[in-house]
């Protein structure tokens, strides 16, 4: 009898634990959801604050000819979540955000501020912190999502993988995920640059293309970077994972193309009173990838000289790009401030208040070191 009682107690305990600690209590079938692949946020009409467009997954056809198609839903709301739920007036399925890849923010909204837009995505359990954020160069972000996808079934997936590839092999723009955006927004002395996206007219309807970056000050957008500017910005931020470096005897010439294998940038700021300067050291390993047919640089000037050209090009471009940003925006997108904050916290306390002015007047010195590892499958002279 005692043994039975003991067994009963153990079973009861197990059952209680089973129910108390149960994390997820929601059995739900997949097809009762509308899977969101991407969303676009614009300024609302008719008195609403936001107009949100969702690209969802729709199945068409049946049996083996079943295909995934985009289903565009849109709704107005005074908050993002309000707009999300307002889709239920039109759609019979709740939106499901766990597989949402991208958020495109309209320029209008970006200029007003990102923080209120992002709060729900960070707070809610469904959306991932690894979603990519982009800013639309078009009038609205919805226009982008309305473009017909080319390579995969859904445009959002296409944009997400385009962004991934461009990060790895083109160098502009580099992707910025929701958690990184949040970190930058919450850090001192570092401002945000989000990838920008625009429509590109093509023979059969429009397509989309990435187009440099959108410059922010705090959470408000203040301008754009062209793809080239964005690339040299990425050198300073040490975000180059691959891509090309076109160089030649003089800055601006395009005789030799190097493919970047490995790139490492260190930024060394220094402060003296209310002024600051910065030394940017870029170290690159590259492959000699292409040369224009006119001169064989390898035979004529040698690999060491080509390395010098590349170093000069890099130094020139990065320096002029930093200067350009200093002139156009009073926003420290390079994160020089945060470097000071990290390495010299006491000095940072002194310059923190006037940082925008100090940033604009900062002296910049760039040192580049290029090492060419190989010359591809051709040796010097061959093919000349």
């Amino acid at each position: 009898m005692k043994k039975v009682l003991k067994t009963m107690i153990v079973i009861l305990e197990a059952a209680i634990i089973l129910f108390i600690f149960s994390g997820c209590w929601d059995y739900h079938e997949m097809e009762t959801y509308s899977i969101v692949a991407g969303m676009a946020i614009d300024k609302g009409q008719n008195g609403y604050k936001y107009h949100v467009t969702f690209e969802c997954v729709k199945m068409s056809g049946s049996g083996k000819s079943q295909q995934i198609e985009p289903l565009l839903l849109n709704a107005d709301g005074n908050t993002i979540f309000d707009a999300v739920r307002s889709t239920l007036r039109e759609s019979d399925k709740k939106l499901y955000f766990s597989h949402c890849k991208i958020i495109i923010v309209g320029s209008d909204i970006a200029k007003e501020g990102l923080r209120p837009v992002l709060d729900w995505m960070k707070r809610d359990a469904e959306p991932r912190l690894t979603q990519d954020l982009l800013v639309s160069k078009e009038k609205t972000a919805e226009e982008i999502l309305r473009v017909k996808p080319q390579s995969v079934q859904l445009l959002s997936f296409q944009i997400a993988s385009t962004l991934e590839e461009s990060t790895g092999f083109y160098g502009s723009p580099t992707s910025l995920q929701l958690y990184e955006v949040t970190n930058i927004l919450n850090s001192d002395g570092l401002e945000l640059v989000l990838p920008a996206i625009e429509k590109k007219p093509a023979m059969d309807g429009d397509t989309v293309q990435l187009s440099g970056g959108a410059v922010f000050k705090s959470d408000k957008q203040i301008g754009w970077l062209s793809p080239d500017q964005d690339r040299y910005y990425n050198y300073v931020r040490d975000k180059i994972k691959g891509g090309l470096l076109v160089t030649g005897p003089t800055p601006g010439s395009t005789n030799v193309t190097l493919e970047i294998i490995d790139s490492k940038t260190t930024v060394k700021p220094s402060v003296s009173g209310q002024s600051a300067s910065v030394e940017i050291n870029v170290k690159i390993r590259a492959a000699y990838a292409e040369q224009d047919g006119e001169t064989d640089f390898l035979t004529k000037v040698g690999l060491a000289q080509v390395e010098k050209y590349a170093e000069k090009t890099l130094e020139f471009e990065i320096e002029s790009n930093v200067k350009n940003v200093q002139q156009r925006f009073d926003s420290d997108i390079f994160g020089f401030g945060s470097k000071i904050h990290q390495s010299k916290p006491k000095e940072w306390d002194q310059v923190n208040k006037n940082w925008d002015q100090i940033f604009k007047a900062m002296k910049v010195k760039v040192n580049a070191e290029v090492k060419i590892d190989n010359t591809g499958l051709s040796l010097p002279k061959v093919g000349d």
Partner: protein
Amino acid sequence: MGSSDSFAGAKLPSDKLEQNVLYLKNLFSNDDTLIFRDLENSRGKETLRFCLVYTDGMVNNRLMNQDVIRPLLEFVFKPDEDATLLDTIQLQAMFSNDVKKTDAVEELIQGIVYGDTILLAQGCPQALILNTKGFTLRSIAEPEGERVIRGPREGFNESILTNLSMVRRKIRSQDLKFKFLTFGTRTKTKACICYLDSVVNRNVLTELERRLEKINIDGTLDSNYITENIKDSPFSAVKTVGSTERPDVVAAKLLEGRVALFLDGTPMVLTVPHLFIEHFQADEDYYIHYIFSSVDRILRIFAFVLSLCLPAVYVAMVTFHQEMLPTPLLLSIFAARQGVPFPTALETVMMLIVFEILREAGTRMPGVMAQTLSIVGALVIGQAAVEAKIVSAPIIIVVAMSGICGLMIVRLKGYIIIHRYFLLLCACTLGLYGVLLGLMVLLTGLFGMTSFGVPIMSDIYTRGLQSYKDIYVRAPWWTMVRRPRFLSGNRVRQSGGGEKPK
């Protein structure tokens, strides 16, 4: 043990042949297989009268004629004061290797029903039991259930003596002990405990004998009758008594210190203790290269986990944790789920039941119908059901995968089938969290179980390299210098071993 009721202590009634014959005829009344053969021998001074009693079909007729009846008829009897007639026949006349004189009715009955012949003689209150057994047996063949590609191909048959001889031939040592027992108050089935005296774990042996003594059953037709009577954790689906049809397996287990129990009438020999890992140790593991057998064993353990958990994990992922699926996989499952009327959990349960039906049908039906079954199973249930949108395609894949993995470890079939549903239930209510809790419950159960005093998971959790040499992998034979822990009191297996061959 089931010694019989009414005949215990009964003796033959008289020294008159007629009375004794009548007595036996009454005992076996309404049994027309019994044959009473009367003989007379008048070569000596007086006429001797005998009667042979045996069961038709269980004796070797040639042997009867040549070696029993002929000597009885040709024998010239010289009366002797010191010896009785039967003594003289036993010593001087009978051409039989096994002759026993007795007057106990019990023994006579046992002899008659087991193919022996009873010789009754005029003027003797006793009888001789002559070994004339000659019934037909299945020949030694490779066991269907435990086939190997490389290794010995003989399997046990239904005769206990043949089976014992097969093991005796493998272990030629006086150390190998055989102890006979009888089970079944009515069937009087012979059984034999077999062990290696210097290796065996005494605790296991005494525990086995204690449990066997308690058995009270009217018949034992297969060794499972015994298993269920002596098993630890009798309600659990986990086997704690091993069984095999192969003499090489029995010999190997005896060498490791286990005890074997043979039962007459069945080729299935029991071995105790039975550890959980034995489900994964195929006999062929020891006959092929150790690397291949290690890979196979790891594969078997993996298949076991997969077979147990796959449906549960699938249901948990698809209905609770959609965010954990890679997006392309999510989309293809999403596409497959379109228009399917049943919830995923119900679908899975349904298809699992269908699989079990197909499996059971395949086991029970005659071979000629196999083609029909596979066509109906594969085409109708698999393809048509998916195309008709009654079930989604991923479910078929999951169930088939789980089922086939289960067939890889046939000896754990029962355990897997039951607990697969248990885990599925956990998954349906609590998702992956429930699967984990369910697995914890199962593991706790396994770790708490013993087989004849030995924890069935003992080798898996004991430390020390030696313990792992025959668990997840099978180490080369020259490294296995010790026997598994707990199995044997004498753990040194190969003294001076453990050296790499040069």
